[in-house]
């Protein structure tokens, strides 16, 4: 059993970063994720593991520092919140194309614009449909507990390196700010220089005859298309192997509540309340938002009377749910925006109004 601690989501994420053998973190303050940089600065990871922590002058600089260090084959991470993540998109697109592994967490706040510092899930489209320019995906993990903030960091680094791709943790301000009991894993050692990937990383040529270079530029269209096909094949492999989800009381369910992150937690509570009233409600919670767990919705759609999708936005994931089930079952949506969090009884009331009457 690992060490048990009571921790804030953002701090748990930061502690997990150090323990995951991360080599460098570059970040810029923004609410509601500033505790990540503060926790790291306080912990002095250079002393603990030799990990670099640097406060960059902007999110643009932070993500490009990630590009540089990640391009050397090192384990690198940045975190931010919605407006900062928007600033990072150009470099994320570059890294997806040049296949630079890294881990990025967005502790979402309400938008658009400067919006609010209160929690939101308004960046689902941005995270899952590209975000930056061009044709690419990131693996997107959506934690719904502080424990998952811990686990997703370790898993995220592994996925990033396995597939040579940026991986995204899409959390919301509430998960970042809430305190929960977590079990921490033991320190994973940082990679040695000898373990850096000589096939592609810019480590210095060493004994290699030819250089490695990291680029996203392929000016001839026929060459660029080869890269595009290669990336798309990778995404198909990821879809096949890495789709993750959780189900709750689903086997006898007539109805499904679905949502991600904090929304899914509230759905579970609402489903329990519905069951007390005699309605058989279960929950599907996608853990990977990309790849989206289409198959689990398809599996149950035929025997359901309906799905209620609950999100802290105007209805984003619901599009993927509808795409998954087609006209096999009715899909309705309930959401709050602006940093408001839906309450379980609100969800139940809405459910009864739509599906039961």
């Amino acid at each position, binding site marked *: 059993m690992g060490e048990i601690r009571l921790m804030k989501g953002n701090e748990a994420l930061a502690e997990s970063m150090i323990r995951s053998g991360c080599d460098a973190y570059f970040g810029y303050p923004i609410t509601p994720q500033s505790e990540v940089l503060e926790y790291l600065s306080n912990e002095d990871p250079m002393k603990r593991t030799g990990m670099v922590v640097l406060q960059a002058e902007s999110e643009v600089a932070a993500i490009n520092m990630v590009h*540089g*260090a990640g391009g*050397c084959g090192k384990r690198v991470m940045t975190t931010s919140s919605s407006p900062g993540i928007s600033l990072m998109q150009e470099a994320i697109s570059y890294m997806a194309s040049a296949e630079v592994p890294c881990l990025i967490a967005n502790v979402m706040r309400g938008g658009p614009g400067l919006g609010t510092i209160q929690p939101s899930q308004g960046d689902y489209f941005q995270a899952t449909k590209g975000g930056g320019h061009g044709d690419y995906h990131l693996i997107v993990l959506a934690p719904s507990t502080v424990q998952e903030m811990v686990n997703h960091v370790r898993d995220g680094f592994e996925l990033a390196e396995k597939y040579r791709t940026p991986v995204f943790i899409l959390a919301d301000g509430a998960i970042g700010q809430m305190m929960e009991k977590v079990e921490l894993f033991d320190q994973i050692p940082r990679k040695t220089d000898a373990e850096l990937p000589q096939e592609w990383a810019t480590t*210095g040529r060493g004994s290699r005859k030819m250089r490695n270079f990291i680029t996203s530029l392929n000016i001839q269209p026929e060459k660029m298309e080869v890269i595009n096909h290669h990336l798309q094949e990778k995404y198909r492999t990821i879809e096949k192997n890495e789709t993750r989800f959780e189900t709750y009381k689903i086997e006898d369910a007539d109805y499904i509540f679905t949502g991600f992150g904090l929304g899914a937690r509230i759905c579970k509570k609402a489903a329990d309340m519905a069951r007390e009233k005699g309605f058989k409600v279960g929950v599907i919670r996608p853990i990977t938002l990309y790849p989206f767990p289409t198959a689990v919705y398809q599996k149950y759609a035929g025997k359901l009377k309906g799905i209620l999708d609950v999100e802290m936005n105007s209805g984003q994931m619901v599009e993927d749910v509808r795409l998954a089930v087609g006209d096999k079952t009715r899909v309705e949506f309930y959401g709050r925006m602006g940093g408001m969090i839906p309450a379980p009884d609100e969800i139940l009331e809405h459910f009864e109004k739509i599906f039961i009457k």
Partner: protein
Amino acid sequence: MNEHLIKEENLVYKKPSTLLDVSMHYCPGCGHGTVHKTLMEVVEELGIESNTIGVAPVGCSVFAYNYMNIDMQQAPHGRACAIATGIRRVMPDKYVFTYQGDGDLAAIGTGETMHAASRGENFFTIFINNGIYGMTSGQMAPTTLEGMKTTTCPRGRDVKTMGYPLYLGPILAQLPGVAYVTRQAVDSVAHVRNLKKAMLKAFEYQKQKLGFCLIEVVSNCPSNLKMTAVQANEFVRNTMIPNYPLGDIKTPEGK
């Protein structure tokens, strides 16, 4: 014909082994080729090709990694100094440099350059000041001189509405994190020799971890200046250099 004369002992000029054997895409007479070759000569002479990492910009020199046989990353437009910071922080024993045009470094990338310099990051930047945007076909650069014509200031740069030329080198020299700022040129053999000496120094200062170094190179862009190679170098000599005087602006030994 004279094949029998091509022998090692007769050679007066040779491509450095650190440059790959491919033809460059640069326009005839362009300064980029000369700076690439000079830099790779220095890397070869110092014998550091196996532990040097370069960063290419967005601009005409975006393809630098096609020519230099050292590990390289290609940065988003303007972000080379942030990429180099990331590299140097996790690879503190490698030599790291960025190679950037004036648009890349002194317009879109001013922030990253200034802050890397201010933090005293231990890498150096080669700043190609050709007074114009090359790759995008001749628009106004931050370094475009007052009155100089480009496609976006066809009647000449009007400083009242378009701003003044930006002298980033002297500005960076003010920062305590900066060890060395020098301005060199590639319009003549003598100037190229001086450039080479400056590059040797920059590698040496990096080895000593003295802080950020900037080598500004006053260069040309014959294609967009719509000049022959010779005319473009005369323009550098007669118009650019008087506005961008050559020499050291700051050295670690003394201000």
